[in-house]
């Protein structure tokens, strides 16, 4: 079996890897937003403030120091696990803002992925294993068609039809707690899922097509197993691996998609906090959210790699 030290070194490597990504993301986010004209003092005092008032507030918030000094201080704090407090929402620790927003976004992304998989995998399997090329081409082209449309267009159509015309869902907003939030969750999740559905169908179709050309699938058919059984036991498991890789990569894309969906549905999630924070030049919150989002993506990829090894016995039982 793989020796303990090699596992240790692999974990150590992963931790180092995460630290490198964390530092990179924090520094880039911190520098990028400080390049933008205007700062928190401007947004707080609005367009009626006097130049002296703005200057005094800038000094108070420490915004008059050089970008380098501010970034260095940020890294110092992050190293100690302190994300700092928001500039434009007085006395709101960034960790509180992140912890409030995180569950909203995660639940939307998780629900979206669930819908994308539940709808996408069967479609992908059908497209990949059907013998009628028209069906395969039809499903693939429909998926591509969806991919081309902007996410906000699909979200607005969803609101117009499902919420306003049919009235089977609220037109946005968020509940007080669970399970009441589920009522508000399913429509945005559906809109976000449509964003990822085409990729899921494509990956599963590709994997199914490749899997069904494998000899062991033909051998299984030759042994008299029913097509449904062959697909379920031999084709589907083989599609799960690339699906996992897609999920890993999806986490990053879904965060961007979440911003659009959260804005349109008015959900108090990551994306919206980020847009507000950038709009008000709330540097600590921007850095906090960027770091958490990046760690979330790295974590998802870590889990995916682990599942990858677990799912493929050839790796798990390597001599």
């Amino acid at each position: 079996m793989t020796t303990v030290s090699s596992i240790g070194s692999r974990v150590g490597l992963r931790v180092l890897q995460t630290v490198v990504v964390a530092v990179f993301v924090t520094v880039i986010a911190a520098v990028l937003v400080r390049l933008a004209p205007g700062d928190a003092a401007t947004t707080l005092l609005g367009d009626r403030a006097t130049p002296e008032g703005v200057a005094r507030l800038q000094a108070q918030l420490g915004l008059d120091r050089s970008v380098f000094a501010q970034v260095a201080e940020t890294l110092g704090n992050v190293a100690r696990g302190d994300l700092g407090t928001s500039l434009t929402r007085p006395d709101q620790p960034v960790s509180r803002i992140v912890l409030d927003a995180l569950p909203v976004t995660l639940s939307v992304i998780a629900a979206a992925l669930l819908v994308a998989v539940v709808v996408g995998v069967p479609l992908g399997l059908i497209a990949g294993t059907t013998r009628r090329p028209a069906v395969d081409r039809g499903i693939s082209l429909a998926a591509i068609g969806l991919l081309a449309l902007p996410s906000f267009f699909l979200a607005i159509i969803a609101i117009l039809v499902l919420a306003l015309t049919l009235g089977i869902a609220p037109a946005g907003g968020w509940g007080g707690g669970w399970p009441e939030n589920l009522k508000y969750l399913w429509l945005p999740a559906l809109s976000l899922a449509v964003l990822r559905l085409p990729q899921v169908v494509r990956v599963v179709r590709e994997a199914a097509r490749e899997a069904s050309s494998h000899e062991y699938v033909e051998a299984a058919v030759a042994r008299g197993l029913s097509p449904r059984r062959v697909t379920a036991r031999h084709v589907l498991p083989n599609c799960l691996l690339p699906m996992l890789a897609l999920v890993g990569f999806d986490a990053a894309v879904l965060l961007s998609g979440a911003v659009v969906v959260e804005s349109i549905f008015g959900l108090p999630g990551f994306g919206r906090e980020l847009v507000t924070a950038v709009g008000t030049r709330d540097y600590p919150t921007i850095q906090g959210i960027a770091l958490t989002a990046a760690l979330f993506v790295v974590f998802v990829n870590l889990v995916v790699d682990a599942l990858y090894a677990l799912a493929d016995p050839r790796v798990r039982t390597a001599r």
Partner: protein
Amino acid sequence: MSATAAAPTHPVARVARRLRLPSDVGLLIGVGTLAAMLALAFLLPVVTGYGTNEFAGAPYQAPSLSHPFGTDQFGRDVMVRTFAAAKVDYMIAFLAVGVSLLIGTTIGVVIGVVHGGVVDWLLSRLVDAVIAFPLVILVLALVVAVGPEKSAPGLPAGTPALLIALFVFGWAFYARLAHAQALSLREREFVVAARMMGYSRTRIVMRHMLPNVLATATAYAVGDAVFIIGATASLAFLGAGVQPPTPEWGQIMFEARGVLETAWWTSVFPGLALVVTGLALALIADGLIQRLEGGSK
């Protein structure tokens, strides 16, 4: 980014695949559609007499003979603008995908070749970090930070910010795709043979690996250009879109999102153009990939 398409291992499937002529029909239809869109982009203003930004009629006119796609908020002809947007969107997609593809693939192959060294580890972590970096922060910062003059010579106003956003995210993709392929190519006979004959590492990369990886990446790039066009359209929502009044499908649909019920034609026809473009690109990508797989054993 879909998994790499390994050649089917089943003897008969290989036989069947090689004998089937790569369906150029799809490829031709795809290229033909894109060409037709561009042709109309140049022809329509002449034929209809409406300028791209000209207030040609009353605002929000429903589709009629004089305005087959109706008019928008300013009374500009939606048909002329929808096809004029093709020029902008194709240029953005071509530049964003092209640059990302070249830079990303090269870096991916380099990581593949220097496999195992510290450079490999660092570059791979850079790729991971870029993919992990929330694109939306970069976009929002770009909406704000890119200097007062947001236009560059030859590009419509606002596209530099858009291209930077798409490029910074895109190259990491292709790097990861190329890296995976470079690793599989390393074992292939001709690369091992080249190394045996003492070729220098850069020569191997440039002469042998890059062309191969580039071919596959290009086939996928065309397919994923659809993703890029969709993303461009969504960036309009974050304010990183093309500056008005330059027509771009995402921006047009963003500005018309409020009147989807009363003036549906201002959103639906650009949406249709986006979908048709997506389908054309998908056909081209399928054709290229088949040509690629049809050829390789």
